């Protein structure tokens, strides 16, 4: 249909982008009618996403053509921005920036080294940046989910935590059930992704490989490796964030701090 209006591939994409944005705004508007106040935040996120992805697209071309040491720098910048986004969700918790950044760095760093060592990707910017950014985005998401949930669990279970302390429990013991719930909750989306892999969700990567004439078994295994990586990074990231945060929730006298 759109091809009747213009043949220019750039304009085709621009029309397509506008169409999908309309879809999102429609959903946000309906939500607004039901008192779900997401219109402003959702709209801004949409615009921001659009500008960012276009800007980065242009930037990436330059990076891909440049030397490979640019890749880690680009990834570090992405981690910094991811940290900013994730910490804005849980601003009431202590030391969140440092903790989130370290968790992303640790989980993505370890996984990236493993991916390189196993030869899953090559040490080229064109491979490291897409995979790395995917890992960072996942780490950021699971950390956000875990910390937000932990904050909620602490708030709704303050009495239980203090009851445990008052019976002589260590801070770690007293807060263990809330930590457990937070990490589990943060991983549910990743685990569901894994469960639906190939059945509900046939990822683009595998489709591309299949269409390119790649052996089905090999493409399937490669896709599995990538999804497993995402799950692994997520688990590692949320666990390390929550465990790094834990001591900061209590003071020297083993009292629960107000957050």
């Amino acid at each position, binding site marked *: 249909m759109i091809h009747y209006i213009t043949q220019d591939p750039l304009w085709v994409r621009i029309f397509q982008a506008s169409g999908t944005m309309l879809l999102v705004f429609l959903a946000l508007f309906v939500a607004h009618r039901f008192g779900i106040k997401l219109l402003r935040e959702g709209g801004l996120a949409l615009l921001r996403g659009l500008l960012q992805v276009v800007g980065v697209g242009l930037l990436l071309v330059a990076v891909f053509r440049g030397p490979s040491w640019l890749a880690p720098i680009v990834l570090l910048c992405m981690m910094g921005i991811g940290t900013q986004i994730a910490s804005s969700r849980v601003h009431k918790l202590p030391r969140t920036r440092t903790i989130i950044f370290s968790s992303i760095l640790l989980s993505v760093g370890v996984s990236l080294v493993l991916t390189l060592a196993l030869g899953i990707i090559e040490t080229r910017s064109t491979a490291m940046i897409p995979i790395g950014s995917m890992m960072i985005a996942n780490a950021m998401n699971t950390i956000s989910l875990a910390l937000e949930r932990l904050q909620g669990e602490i708030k709704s279970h303050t*009495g*239980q935590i*203090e*009851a*445990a*302390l*008052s*019976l*002589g*429990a*260590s801070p770690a*013991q007293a807060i263990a*059930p809330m930590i457990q719930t937070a990490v589990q909750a943060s991983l549910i989306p990743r685990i569901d992704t894994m469960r639906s892999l190939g059945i509900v969700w046939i990822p683009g990567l595998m489709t591309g490989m299949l269409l390119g004439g790649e052996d089905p078994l090999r493409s399937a295994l490669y896709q599995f490796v990538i999804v497993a990586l995402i799950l692994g990074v997520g688990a590692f990231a949320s666990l390390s964030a929550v465990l790094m945060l834990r001591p900061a929730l209590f*003071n020297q*006298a*083993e*009292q*629960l701090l107000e957050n």
Partner: protein
Amino acid sequence: MTTHLLEVRDLGRQSEGTWLLREISFSLQTGKLMVVMGPSGSGKSTLLRMLNRLDEPSSGSILLDGVDITTLPPQSLRRRVGMVMQSPHLFPETVADNIRFGPLQRGKQLSDEDVERLLSQVGLAGFGERSIKKLSGGEAARVSLARTLANEPELLLLDEPTAALDEAMSREIEALIAGLLQENGYTAIWITHHVEQAKRLAEQVLLLDQGRCKALGGVELLQQDSSIHGKMG
């Protein structure tokens, strides 16, 4: 030497620039029961929370058996100074899990007989495997008490243990706790809103008002002070 288990000197707690509690001093002899009364918000719970070190004092000191509690490891202090909170805050899943919790923190696994003995002390024999979701308010209060007693505390802090219960149940639990205190010779601090209850229990009385000590003395305070008569808070 002193037989005072607890000595509180010039205790105060400040939060966000206001004093929740200030200039509180008293001492409590081993085996005695002190009742704390005062209007809602007068700092009664704050006092108990400082004794159990859930809250930090801003001034003054607390001596347990002559030792400043800030020099003790918090976990062992909290085992020695048991607290029964205003609401039970039970842990999932079963009643027995709750009873075992305290001793387990020190690596001590209570036997089934120990659990049963503690439960029958509070009139809940045979409740061990019951889910905490299936307890009435009175039963939950008893579990909360038994859970604290499982730690064999030297000093027992009771924050309105009967406040959430109806008159009859309140009397029953009161008699139960009073009996246990008597039998075991516990030293205890009991917060209540109820003058009649206070008269039945008290050997020593601390009256608080707006975070300050209004009076400290014996049971006669409850007769003299007309302002505390009637339902408080």
